[in-house]
């Protein structure tokens, strides 16, 4: 099984299935114990400087924004980040908390490219390694399976592969070249869900993005939720549990936790807020002012929500599509 090519990108988080198993055995609690806590406590207890972190889904769609804002407030440093996102990654980069990015896409979709990403990477301040969007999710999937790598047919023949840490090998069955992606295990994962019980059994409505994979790829998993439901409800429809309690270390109640992003069937994206941020983000001082007002200037998520204003949030609820 010949290795035909090896990407020259730096592997920021080498795969270690045995290390993950030992960590799980030592730190994860398989007992159903209540895990509801404040975002302050969750971030303070579970995130360390230098950690490799990942978030799901992305900045304008079911993102764990209240957790990200708290992460910025607590000013964790030298983070390594799975760079798939928009607003959430911009905040971390703007606050100079990131040393390295496994990047697939950081941008504002139709609105344009990320000014903050440019200011972070073009001076050589933040290191990058390239991946496709599927590749990042498949790397989580490999970790979720508990194996060191996963074969895929993306990235072949491109600079995306050359500047990644993937390898191309000859498939022993077909003899054709195939790309192997190293599993991506997170020190801490962050996911915002529609419903969770106090033990961390979670449900997501609509598309699940890569929540299933990221939850299982995380050594520590912090979940924020729109609402906390009784465990009896979870047990009534066990097939709807996408994240079982034993994966979860903290459950943070955060209604409107995805704001300024949307939460399907609950509230629509705050397009005004997002566009204002994107406009301001072109200017370092205005970016700083945004952080001062919306992040550092808020004690916690409740404070942030008060600043956004309940009338505005009620409007956004009216604007979201139903079933």
């Amino acid at each position, binding site marked *: 099984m010949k290795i035909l090519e090896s990407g020259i990108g730096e592997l920021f988080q080498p795969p270690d299935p045995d290390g993950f198993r030992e960590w799980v055995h030592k730190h994860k609690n398989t007992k159903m114990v209540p895990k509801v806590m404040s975002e302050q406590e969750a971030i303070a207890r579970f995130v360390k400087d230098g950690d490799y972190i990942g978030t799901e889904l992305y900045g304008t769609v079911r993102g764990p924004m209240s957790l990200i804002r708290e992460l910025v407030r607590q000013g964790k440093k030298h983070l390594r980040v799975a760079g798939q996102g928009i607003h959430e990654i911009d905040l971390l980069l703007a606050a100079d908390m990131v040393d390295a990015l496994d990047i697939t896409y950081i941008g504002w979709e139709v609105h344009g490219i990320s000014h903050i990403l440019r200011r972070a990477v073009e001076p050589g301040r933040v290191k990058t390694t390239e991946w496709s969007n599927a590749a990042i999710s498949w790397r989580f999937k490999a970790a979720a399976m508990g194996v060191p790598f996963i074969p895929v047919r993306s990235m072949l*023949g491109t600079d*995306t592969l050359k500047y990644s840490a993937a390898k191309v090998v000859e498939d022993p069955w077909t003899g054709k070249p195939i790309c192997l992606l190293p599993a991506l295990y997170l020190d801490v994962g962050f996911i915002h869900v529609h419903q969770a019980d106090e033990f961390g059994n979670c449900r997501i409505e609509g598309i699940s993005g890569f929540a299933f994979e990221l939850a299982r790829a995380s050594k520590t998993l912090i979940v924020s939720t729109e609402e906390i439901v009784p465990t009896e409800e979870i047990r009534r429809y066990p097939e709807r549990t996408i994240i079982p309690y034993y994966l979860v270390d903290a459950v943070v109640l955060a209604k409107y936790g995805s704001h300024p992003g949307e939460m399907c069937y609950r509230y629509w994206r705050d397009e005004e807020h997002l566009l204002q941020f994107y406009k301001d983000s072109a200017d370092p001082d205005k970016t700083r002012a945004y952080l001062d007002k919306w992040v550092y200037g808020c004690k916690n998520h409740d404070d942030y929500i008060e600043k956004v204003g309940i009338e505005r949030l009620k409007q956004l609820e009216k604007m979201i599509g139903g079933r």
Partner: protein
Amino acid sequence: MARYNETEFLICLAASLMEDGATAFIGTGIPMLAAALAKKTHAPNLVAVFEFGGTGASLERLPLAVGESRTFHKAVAASGICDIMETAQRGFIEYGFLGAAQIDMYGNLNTTVIGPYWPPKVRLPGSGGANDVGSHCWKNIIIVRQHDTRRFVPKIDFLTTPGYLTGPGAREKAGLPPNTGPYRVVTSLALLDFEPETKRMRLIGLNPNVTVEQVKQNTGFELLVADHLVTNPEPTDEQLRILREEVDPDHYYI
């Protein structure tokens, strides 16, 4: 004043390439508008697939992002990115839609950096799903709004998404699925395809009031020209009405 602007023209041209009942991997921007327009006109059974899990959404309302709720509103399925990408990898997605900052004669695309890789002169968003779409969909349609020599270059700074790579057989040699690759390029000036033998970009249609010379002057590499050139159809009043009144009434994009 003109009956339509350039964006509207591109949307209508892209929409005309969408086949009723086909699966199409839809990205943000023009492809979304084109898909929504196609569904409301000649292709009501178009199956729009979005990378984060939406399959077969109604597209009654225009999505603003590839993961947002309108990408799976009244969809037949709402799964996740792995399922969607693996569905493409298994060969179920006919059309892909891609954009680019740079494109070469083989339809290879750059959306990663301008200049050296690191540190770059300009850091672009990166591949996102583009590399996956370009690797797995059967026919990829590339939309480049400004057709000029800054975008149509002899050598792209970074090969983010595979076109025909270095030419005939190169995709297969790299391990990419056979019989896939770029299919059409839609630009502000013209419609282009890839000549079957050489896999090189070829001019096949001119937008209204555009000359062959103009296209050549704005292309940074030697462009093949089809024997018989068509003039790309102008949007009909009905297309424009639906686009403006039903697809994007808030003029979010247009």
